[in-house]
């Protein structure tokens, strides 16, 4: 089975520009979460979506937005890019099937998108 996929792998943007990152979850998974990982730090939670609705938001400014599509894929948008937005953006999917045990909520990560803002 295919794992979580993300595109693009790398991209370079200029301050003030806008960027869209894409994520396709594991087949059958209905939840997608986004994390930002600045170099040398652990990932920080940005958003969680489930069944196309936002279920959680981390401490990020309104320049960050996301959405989830009927096929459960997701996009993360960042407007008015700042140098500090340079990071690895990770997407994770989980089934959230509601069955007992931790495995249905376990998050599987994609390879990430490396964003560089110059």
């Amino acid at each position: 089975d295919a794992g979580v996929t993300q595109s693009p792998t790398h991209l370079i943007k200029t301050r003030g520009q806008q960027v869209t990152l894409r994520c396709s979850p594991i087949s059958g998974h209905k939840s997608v979460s986004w994390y930002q990982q600045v170099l040398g730090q652990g990932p920080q939670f940005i958003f969680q979506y489930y069944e196309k609705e936002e279920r959680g938001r981390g401490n990020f400014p309104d320049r960050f937005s996301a959405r989830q599509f009927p096929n459960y894929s997701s996009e993360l948008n960042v407007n008015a890019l700042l140098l500090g937005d340079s990071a690895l953006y990770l997407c994770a999917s989980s089934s959230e099937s509601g069955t007992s045990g931790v495995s249905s909520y376990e998050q599987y990560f994609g390879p990430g998108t490396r964003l560089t803002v110059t």
Partner: protein
Amino acid sequence: AQTVTQSQPEMSVQEAETVTLSCTYDTSESDYYLFWYKQPPSRQMILVIRQEAYKQQNATENRFSVNFQKAAKSFSLKISDSQLGDAAMYFCAYRSAFGPRDTGRRALTFGSGTRLQVQP
């Protein structure tokens, strides 16, 4: 809010030997899950081992085991018979067990990571 602390930025171990990575966390919740993730240079975050807080028995996955001390809020990872392929960043992570989905409590809270080097 929960916090996760990894106080060892870097660790080094000889191949075939044993190393222990430390993690402490702070929470007021009684039930939660703890994880160790491995992130090699390829960047893919890989789940190494998980521990449910309500279980007293420490989790074990092949060469990887944890020492979970709930009262002390400590969750260390022991890697036995270290291999060159174990070299990576290791992150400790926390997740709440309860809460409706719309509060985003399924989100993982990560520590700052420990870089493990394995010497041949």
